[in-house]
C-alpha cells in the first residue's frame, strides 16, 4: 500500500511518510517542479470494455409516500424519485450519474448502499440481490459497498477524532483485533495523503479538502469493491477538487475499486468516468460511453445540458457556443408528465411524446437513448424513429397490423442494436 502514488498535495501540513519526520520542521517545503507535478496529474480514465459488471441494477424504483396533513395521515401520492432504471457498473471501472438536482441521482446512490429500501427492482452484486436482503443479511455486504458523501463538514462527527472515524468500520465489522486498528488507520491516512500522526485530531482542525480525504479514508477502510461517490468534490475549492479527483483515480488503479460517481458537474464526470448515464426526473434518458455521450449525444436533454456548461477554452478562443435554453423548471416527480417526462421542456416534442413513453433503446455498441426523435444535435429526425419498433403510428396511436418489437431492457449492452439513421437492427 505504501507505494501508492500519493500526491504531495498536503505537503504544507507536514510530510506524511515516517522516517522523514525531520522534514516537517522545514517551513519552506520545496514543491515538486512542474514536470513532476504534471506527472502525478492524471488524464481521463479509459474504458475497459472487457471488465465484467460488479453491480447490475435492473428496473430499480423508489417511491416515497406523500402523506396528507391532519390526524390520520393517509398516503395521498408518491414521489417517483427513481422510476425503473437499469445500468451496470464494471469491475474496477466507473459509471457517472449526472442530472439536475431532484432527478434522483442521489437517491440511486442511497439505494445501492441500502440507506433506503427500494420499492421494486433488483441490484445484483456478486451472487446477492441487494434489493432483497434484510438489514441483518446486508451487514456483511456493507464491507464491499461504501460511500463518500458530498459535504465534508456534515459527514464527519465533530466529536470523534479522525482515528475513531476512520477506525469505526474496522471495529464494527471486527476485521482486525482492537490493537491493530490504530496502525491500520495510520496506513489509511497515509494512503489518502494525510499525516498519520494526526489520528487524534478532530475534524474541525482540518480544511475542506483534508476532511474529504478523511471521508475517503473511512470509505476505503474495509477494502470495498464498489464506492458510491455522491458529489465528492462539489463542496471543495477548485484547486482542491483536482487533488481529490487525482487521489480517487490513484486509489481506483491501486485497489481496483469500482465507482458509481454521482455529480452534476459534467466536466468532472467526463474526466473521471468512461461511461456516463444522464438522469431526468427519475429515469435514465441516455447512457453511453464518454465519446458517444459527449461527442454524439442523441437526447435533446443531454444536448441542452452539454450546451449549458460554460467552456473556458471556447470562450477564450472567441467562439461562444450557441446555448440551448431550457425553459421553466423540472416538473414535480409526484405527478410526472405522461409519456416522455422531458416533453414539457423539449423543443422536439410532438403528439407521440405525450402518448407513448420512449424505451431506452440501444442505438450503438455502447449507447442507449430514450427519445422518439433521437438524433445528433441539429439532425433530429422529423418522424419518430421508434414508431415501427413500438407498433404505433407517427402520432403515437396504435397502428393496425403492426406488432411491437421487444426492446431489450436489461442493464447491459447487446451485440445487436437499432441504427437510428437506417431505422433497422444492425449487428456488431
Amino acid at each position, binding site marked *: 500500500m505504501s507505494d501508492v502514488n500519493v500526491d504531495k498535495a498536503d505537503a504544507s501540513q507536514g510530510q506524511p511518510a515516517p522516517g522523514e519526520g525531520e522534514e516537517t520542521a522545514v517551513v519552506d517545503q520545496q514543491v515538486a517542479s512542474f514536470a513532476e507535478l504534471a506527472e502525478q496529474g492524471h488524464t481521463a480514465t479509459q474504458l475497459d470494455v472487457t471488465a465484467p459488471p460488479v453491480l447490475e441494477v435492473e428496473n430499480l424504483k423508489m417511491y416515497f409516500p406523500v402523506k396528507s396533513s391532519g390526524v390520520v395521515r393517509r398516503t395521498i401520492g408518491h414521489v417517483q424519485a427513481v422510476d425503473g432504471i437499469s445500468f451496470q457498473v464494471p469491475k474496477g471501472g466507473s459509471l457517472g450519474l449526472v442530472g439536475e438536482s431532484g432527478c434522483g441521482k442521489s437517491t440511486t446512490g442511497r439505494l445501492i448502499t441500502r440507506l433506503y429500501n427500494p420499492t421494486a427492482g433488483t441490484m445484483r452484486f456478486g451472487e446477492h440481490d441487494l434489493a432483497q436482503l434484510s438489514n441483518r443479511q446486508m451487514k456483511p455486504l456493507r464491507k464491499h459497498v461504501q460511500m463518500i458523501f458530498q459535504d465534508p463538514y456534515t459527514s464527519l462527527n465533530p466529536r470523534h477524532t479522525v482515528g475513531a472515524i476512520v477506525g469505526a468500520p474496522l471495529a464494527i465489522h471486527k476485521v482486525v483485533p482492537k490493537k491493530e486498528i490504530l496502525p491500520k488507520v495510520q496506513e489509511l491516512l497515509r494512503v489518502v495523503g494525510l499525516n498519520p500522526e494526526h489520528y487524534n485530531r478532530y475534524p474541525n482542525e482540518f480544511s475542506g479538502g483534508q476532511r474529504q480525504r478523511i471521508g475517503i479514508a473511512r470509505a476505503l477502510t474495509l477494502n470495498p469493491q464498489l464506492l458510491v461517490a455522491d458529489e465528492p468534490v462539489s463542496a471543495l475549492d477548485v484547486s482542491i477538487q483536482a487533488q481529490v479527483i487525482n487521489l480517487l483515480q490513484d486509489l481506483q488503479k491501486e485497489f481496483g475499486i469500482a465507482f458509481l460517481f454521482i455529480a452534476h458537474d459534467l466536466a468532472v464526470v467526463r474526466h473521471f468516468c468512461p461511461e456516463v448515464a444522464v438522469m431526468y426526473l427519475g429515469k435514465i434518458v441516455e447512457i453511453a460511453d464518454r465519446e458517444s455521450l459527449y461527442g454524439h449525444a442523441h437526447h435533446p436533454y443531454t444536448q441542452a445540458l452539454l450546451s449549458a456548461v460554460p467552456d*473556458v477554452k471556447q470562450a477564450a478562443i472567441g467562439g461562444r457556443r450557441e446555448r440551448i435554453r431550457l425553459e421553466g423548471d423540472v416538473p414535480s416527480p409526484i405527478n410526472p408528465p405522461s409519456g416522455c417526462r422531458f416533453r414539457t421542456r423539449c423543443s422536439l416534442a410532438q403528439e407521440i411524446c405525450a402518448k407513448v413513453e420512449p424505451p431506452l433503446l440501444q442505438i450503438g455498441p455502447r449507447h442507449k437513448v430514450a427519445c422518439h426523435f433521437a438524433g445528433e444535435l441539429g439532425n433530429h429526425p422529423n418522424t419518430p424513429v421508434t414508431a415501427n419498433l413500438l407498433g404505433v403510428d407517427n402520432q403515437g396511436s396504435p397502428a393496425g397490423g403492426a406488432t411491437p418489437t421487444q426492446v431489450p431492457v436489461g442493464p447491459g449492452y447487446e451485440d445487436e442494436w437499432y441504427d437510428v439513421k437506417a431505422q433497422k437492427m444492425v449487428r456488431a
Partner: protein
Amino acid sequence: MTDERRDEKREVADTSGDDAFLVVDDLTVRFPTEDGLLTAVSGLSYEVRMGETLGIVGESGSGKSVSSLAVLGLHDAKSSRISGSIRVGGTEVIGLSESRMRKLRGNAVSMIFQDALAALHPFYKIGGQLAEAYQVHHPNATKRDARRKAIEMLDRVGIPQPDRRVDDFPHQFSGGMRQRAMIAMGLINDPSLLIADEPTTALDVTVQAQILDLLQDLQREFNSAVIIITHDLGVIAEMADDVLVMYAGRAVEYGPCKEILTHPEMPYTWGLLSSVPEVGADTDARLIPIPGNPPSLLSPPPGCSFHPRCAHMDKVPGNLCSTELPELTPGSRGSGHLKRCHLADPDRVFEAEVLPEIAPELVEEN
C-alpha cells in the same frame, strides 16, 4: 506601501480612461482577531466602467467577497480597519456616514448574494421584500406603486405569472426562481453598479445558463457596470470583459478576459486553468492540481504569497520568490495586462510546459 507603487497604479488607472464608475485604489481591509491582525485584502486596485463586466476569481479566503462588501460599506467600522480609496461615481465610500451610505446602497450600488434562500427573509412575501427595497429609495412612492414595480421586475427577470407569484413566500420558489427574485431586488432601483457574489454557484448548469443570460440581457438594457465574483473560470470566460485574479488578499493578475485566459502569466492562474477539467477538452489533457492549501491570512508566507504552492519557483534565480513580494507590473504583453510574479518569461514557460499538458489540442493548432 511605497509611494512609487501608488504612482504606478495611478498611471495604470489613468491610461485606461477616466470614465470608470467604480475606482478601487489601494484598498486594504484588516480584521483584528484574537489571534492577531488578519489582512483579508491588501493593496487592491481595480476599476469598472459603465456597461462593462469585471470578473473576480479566486478561492475561498482570497478576499474577493471582502473587497466587494467594502464597496457597499458593509463592514462594521468597529471590527474592521479599512484604508485606501473606493470611489463610486465620484463619491468616496470609505469613511462615508451610515446615513449617506444608505442612500447609495441599493440605489447606485446593489448586490446579488450567493445563497438566495439565506438572503431572502423567510417570513415576508417576495413582493413585500421587493417593494421595501423600492420604497426605501423612493419615499414618495405609494404601496401600490411599489407593488406594481415589484411585479414588473419579477416579470422582467422571467418569473411566470408574476402578479400571482408576488404574494409567494421564498420557500415556494425553486432555487433558480429565488435567484431571479434576488436579481429583481438588486435591479429594482436601476443601480449603476451591480455586484454579483457567486450568483450561480448553488445552481444546476441549465439554471446557471438561464441566470447568466439574464444578467447579460439586463446589463445590456440598463448599461450598468457589473462585478461578478466566482471561482468558476467558465463563468468568467462567458461573462467578463476584464478579469482580476486574487490570491491571499492580493491581485495577482489583472487584464482583459481573453488575454488572461489565453496568455496567463502567473502560475496561480495556470494552476486554476489546469485543475479544472473541461467538457470539451482532449481526453489526453492532464488534471494538474495546485499542491497544498491556501495560506493563512494571519501569517501569510513571506515574499510572494503563492510561493509555497508554486511549481515554477525553480525558474526564478535565487530565493527571490520567498523573500520579496513581486510588484503588480505589466507583463510582456502590454500595459493592460498586469501580473504579480518574478518569472522573467512566463509566456514561454506557459506555452512550452503548461499548455502541452493541459490542452494538447491547442498546441497542435499553433
